[in-house]
């Protein structure tokens, strides 16, 4: 058995996984610290959800080798929601060996029902793992995610560009978007109540596609805290903390800057 884990409450995990289902397939990577689910798109957007091992009631992983496989995330989330919203259920996940399916046993806690699901797995293709630690960074901003998602939801959903400017001087943190209907700017002062940490030594301006940013807004609605870092080449890294009932998990989001502007 390469990987086997049990969970008693997976509502939070279901919500997070559903909000990152931008593409059909995800790469599942169980490690000693926890389960990592990665969704990647055209080598420029990468979203990973981390489910810490401590959230599981039991968690066993074969540490002798690196385990990675690809499954349909859509199917996986559908299976997790098989009992609908009502009632509590527990989940057992297992993965025998390379090429075998991912087995899910979902047990309803009140009715005496248990459902077995097998999801076919695939070998992973080579994928580029974006990482902010490879780049030199000079900034880090930690914000209250609720307040940020509130202002970002105000933006025109048909916007094309999303420009972030971080600077050590006023207006500090600025987001500019443009769409056919007009432009919007959001200025957040470093002294704002929603800012928990503001580190910036050098002004950086970088532009992203709004359609990419829109994906993460869904997760931002669930999150309580968000950390924003921009690398030297314009790689934007968001780290989100999602909390519910003393359970905590993380989502990491990377997007590369639009090329050839400025």
């Amino acid at each position, binding site marked *: 058995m390469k990987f086997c884990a049990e969970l008693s409450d997976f509502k939070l995990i279901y919500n997070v996984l559903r909000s990152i289902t931008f593409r059909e397939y995800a790469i599942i990577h169980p490690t000693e610290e926890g389960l990592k689910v990665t969704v990647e798109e055209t080598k420029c957007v990468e979203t990973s959800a981390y489910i810490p091992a401590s959230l599981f009631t039991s968690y066993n992983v074969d540490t002798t080798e690196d385990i990675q496989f690809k499954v349909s995330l859509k199917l996986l989330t559908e299976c997790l929601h098989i009992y609908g919203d009502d009632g509590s259920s527990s989940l057992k996940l297992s993965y025998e060996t390379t090429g075998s399916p991912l087995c899910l046993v979902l047990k309803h806690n009140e009715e005496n029902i248990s459902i077995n699901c097998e999801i076919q797995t695939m070998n992973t293709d080579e994928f580029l793992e974006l990482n902010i630690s490879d780049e030199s960074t000079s900034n880090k901003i930690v914000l209250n995610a609720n*307040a940020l998602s*509130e*202002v970002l*939801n*105000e*933006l*025109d*959903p048909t916007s094309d560009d999303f420009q972030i400017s971080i600077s050590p001087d006023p*207006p500090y943190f600025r987001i500019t978007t443009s769409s*056919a*209907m*007009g*432009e*919007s*700017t*959001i*200025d*957040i*002062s470093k*002294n*704002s*109540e*929603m800012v928990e940490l503001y580190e910036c030594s050098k002004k950086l301006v970088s532009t992203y596609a709004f359609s990419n940013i829109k994906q993460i807004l869904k997760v931002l609605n669930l999150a309580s805290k968000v950390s924003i870092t921009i690398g030297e080449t314009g790689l934007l890294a968001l780290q989100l903390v999602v909390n519910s009932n003393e359970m905590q998990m993380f989502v990491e989001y990377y997007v590369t800057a639009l090329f050839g502007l400025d």
Partner: protein
Amino acid sequence: MNCVIPSGNIRIINKALHTLAKVGDELYIDAKQDYLQFATINQNKTSYVTFDFQSVFFSSYEIGNNRSVDTSDALTCKLHIKAMLNIFKLKGPKEKNIDWCKIEFENDPTRILLKLKYKQDIIVNHSIRLIDMEYISVAYDKDKMPNKINTAGSFYGQILTNFQLSDEDMSLEIKRNKVTIRNYDVASDNVGNRIRSQVVLNSKEFTLYQINQECNITMCFKPFRAAVAFAEAFTLPILMNVDSGGKPVIMTIKNAIFEANFILSTLSPDGLTQSYATSNMFSTADKSKNTELTKDDHTMIENINWDSDF
């Protein structure tokens, strides 16, 4: 133009914009000397809705006089209502987080600026592109209209629960002692298979019931629903000013700081043409009204054929 909406009144602006969006796609902002008007007209120009916000509604209200080149006494601009809706999304707690909202129309004649200041030291600027202006002039005098009916918005809300959302036209038969509201036209011989509903209301149900001329009118449900929803949200009464079939109905909702008028055209009694007096009063309505009618006729005919084939 430069006006600031205080935190407490943002809810009103928000509701007003959502009500306008139910009727039309474009928003006309008209800055008059002592009030700011938001207006919209629907696509076939049968409904015209205005919201007038008195200058006391704003914490500061200024209209620049430097635009003396423009001899008209008002500043008007037109924009896509969707652009405003994004900014004022219906959200309860969010409205409380906003300190004020400023509407600016100054240096750049192609843009209107909206500035929102949040309590958490966030400033959001929206610059919205204006679209080509087209003047609409709707002249009416509701004081001269012979019939007036006034009652609470929630009363109409209860009546509306008796009708389906799919009902398009409502007809009102106004008599000296009662009103009958139907979702079908008594005169038409359209035998549809849908539900026919009628509600009879005694004149005593109304706070004001002043009928000088009995009449039959048929108008569209959609803007009526929008008006009722708005009145219910602020527990305000709706005053209906009715003339006769074919002439517009004006529904007025007002309180001390704002006034909303819903001008809705009605079908003329013969069901085919729009009477002349109406086209004078509601100049933009006449042509499209006719085309809409013929479309209606077509669907009516189609419906009947479909039934007999079955």
